[in-house]
């Protein structure tokens, strides 16, 4: 696995329990997968599955209690503060909520130059880069002088993508980047993600609850349930002919926007549900 950009091996994340001698809460229980350069890995799961926590652990925002995260051959599960700051050049993030991810009292330009100022980029160079970034995410260049409140959710998400791209990272963690957006906006932002990947060769860890979106975006897909990886493999296979019962249920529960196909899917789902119930019954009786 030397050609991997990022390797997650047996990752465990534990949050300390509340109160005296409380059991720690284990959000991620031994998850392993890898991402290659220029690849998109989709991470699917429902609420509480630990998908966001995995992203945060890679970014160093969640406590890794066991296992390793290897980036470019280097173990980054417990880096020094200094090293973590340097790593932000390579690993970036786009969050779900475009409203809270931009400081409402800073202009778009200020938000975008932030990562460059830290690295002491000359002001002129930084401003040129901001124009370049805004162009890359298809926003007008005068957007730099405006405040976040003047922009719609989709436009703000473009700004967030531009900020992630500012330092030319090799990996971007996309944490539900389109689930807060309207359908038509969502389609355009997804297109932008693909276009940027083609242009820059950046790899994505694409976290989402929406199987259809993940299918369209990902080369390989990992499915999470209660902090454990239940299925992992080629994107097409996992999202169309899943082997694990949970993935099967997940797939059949996502409604398709076609009345006839959906009726079929609903019937399949109810049949699967009955099948699983029968199996449980037999397992219990045995």
């Amino acid at each position: 696995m030397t050609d991997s950009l990022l390797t997650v091996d047996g990752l465990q994340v534990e949050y300390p329990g509340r109160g005296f001698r409380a059991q720690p809460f284990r959000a991620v229980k031994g998850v392993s997968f890898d991402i290659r350069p220029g690849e998109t890995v989709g991470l699917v799961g429902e609420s509480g599955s630990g998908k966001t926590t995995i992203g945060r652990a890679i970014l160093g925002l969640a406590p890794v209690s066991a296992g390793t995260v290897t980036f470019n051959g280097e173990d980054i599960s417990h880096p020094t503060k200094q090293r973590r700051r340097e790593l932000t050049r390579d690993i970036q993030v786009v969050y779900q909520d475009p409203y809270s991810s931009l400081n409402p009292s800073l202009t778009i330009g200020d938000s975008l130059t932030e990562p460059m100022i830290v690295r002491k980029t000359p002001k002129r160079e930084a401003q040129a880069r901001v124009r370049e970034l805004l162009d890359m995410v298809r926003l007008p260049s005068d957007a730099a002088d405006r405040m976040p409140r003047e922009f719609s959710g989709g436009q703000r998400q473009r700004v967030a993508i531009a900020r992630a791209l500012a330092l030319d990272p090799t990996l971007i963690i996309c944490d539900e980047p389109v689930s807060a957006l309207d359908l038509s906006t969502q389609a355009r932002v997804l297109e932008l993600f693909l276009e940027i990947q083609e242009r820059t060769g950046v790899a994505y860890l694409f976290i989402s609850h929406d199987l259809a979106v993940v299918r369209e975006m990902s080369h390989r897909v990992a499915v999470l349930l209660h902090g454990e990886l239940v299925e992992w493999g080629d994107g097409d296979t996992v999202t169309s002919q899943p082997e694990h019962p949970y993935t099967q249920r997940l797939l059949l529960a996502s409604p398709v926007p076609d009345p006839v196909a959906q009726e079929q899917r609903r019937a399949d789902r109810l049949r699967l549900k009955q099948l699983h119930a029968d199996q449980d019954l037999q397992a219990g009786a045995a």
Partner: protein
Amino acid sequence: MSTPTTTASSATGAPRRGVLRRLLVHPLGGVSMIVLAVIVVVGVIAPWIAPHDPTETSLSMIFAEPGGEYLLGGDSAGRDIWSRLLIATAFSLAGGLLVMAVASLVGVTAGLIAGYYGGFVDAVGAWFTALTMSLPSIIVLIAARAVIGPSMWWTMAIFGIFISPVYYRVVYNSVRAVRGELYVDAARTSGLGDGRIIGRHVLLAVRAPVILLMSGVIAAGIGMQAGFDFLGLGDPTIPTWGQMLNEGFYNITRSATLVLWPALALGLTTVALTLLGTALRDELEGTSERRRSRKAPAWSLDEDVPAVVDHGGEDASEPLLAVRDLAVAYQAGDGYATVVKGGRLTVRRGETHGLIGESGSGKTQTAFSVLGLLPKGGKVMAGSIVFDGQELTGLSDAQMNRLRGTRIAYVPQEPMSNLDPSFTVGHQLTEPLVKAAGLSRKEAKERALALLARVGIPDPERAFGSYPHQLSGGMAQRVLIAGAVASHPDLLIADEPTTALDVTVQAEVLDLLRDLQEELGMAILIVTHNFGVVADICDRVSVMQKGVMVETGATADVFDDPRHPYTRALFEAIPKGAPRAPLAGVTSAGLLGTGALK
């Protein structure tokens, strides 16, 4: 989603630009700022304009009448009251500023550190706050005076520390709130150090509350100083308002006006500071309502509403719900923001009708108009809503209340925020049955338990006794559905009933709605943005865009042959489910043997 964006943006306004200018035109702010400006100027130039040395005594001037050599007369020691008042202004202001400076320095710094890092500093901060709150500051100040002597500056500095928890608490809470914001996380992943994050992001957020507190703390400092000096505990060599009050009070029988001047100065300053604080809060927090004109402006539909693309297929029978030419508007500034124009909707008995659109399309507004529950400021301006032959638009609240919950029921988007956290599920389910349907407590409980079992809650007895926070989102939504169908309504309005739920739970909730509909024969109006949900459950669908109904028809017809350009665009935006080709050289990993299967 329920309030239109136009009113929201005009209400919050721009807190950053022109706060000073807005303060000046604010009736309280303008006057108080002018008064304070005069007081400050007087305080600053006092040493040069005071006609006499404030400590110079003259036997001939003891209790001198005003208007002579001494403008306001002389005090009991023969000192010039006017000069003393001027110099005292400087010292009183300086004292108040010192209190503010010390309090904000200590309080803001500690609040920032404790709020940002938590842990040890947080614990110490909480302990210190509790300590200063429980100690009477005047006692401590008297004790301190015994040790360090009568120094106004030390007294004020110590009082500043005592009052610093006011800043600490406000800053601490703001920092805690900001700490959870994604932009702070984003700054960390941009490689910013803690110092820069606090300086750049956190400090910006605590700026407003810190400014708000300023005038109040200065006023408190001036008041404390006056009180301390009035008790005779201050530095006798420094003339202050408190000292002059003290002096005037002792001699009130010989010259009543001695008390008047310092009291006026003190009163004027603290009142001005307090009013300035109020005005600042109005402007910074946007609580000021005075820019709204009192008279409602005239509303008119200023554009033609395009005709809806109708696929037909409606039978001749009278519909259960008929909305025609509905217009909903919100007052925004001097005009209106019209969020629904020419709204048209036909729901037949027993059918499931989907109302689909993106945010701002007016779908929720249309549904809320039918319920008579438009958010504050929203009004039905034109059109008619006929439910089962009865016109709803002109009905009073009481009349609507009788319909709602009996014949028209409602299932909201956020199940959790629609259950009262302080009452049990059972209480919330039985209350309407007892109050509205007139059942006895026992009957109501039996009915509620049967309903809970009907909506698929595994242990109805336990759910009946639990509080909303003990339920999952899917369970809470089932409880709300149980409550909605309790009265066998003719029409159930569901506003994005599954948007907040996981897909597996969504599928089950949709199954439940379908089953209940077959059982009870009610009509369902389901507001959604998800074409999958429409395909799953709806017989007919209406598409809305920017307040206008653009297309309506049987679900199969609209999906097969979308005619309006907007509907077509929406369909094109749906992820097609085309998979990506695998990267070269990547082999699939297959199913993992992690033993997750239970």
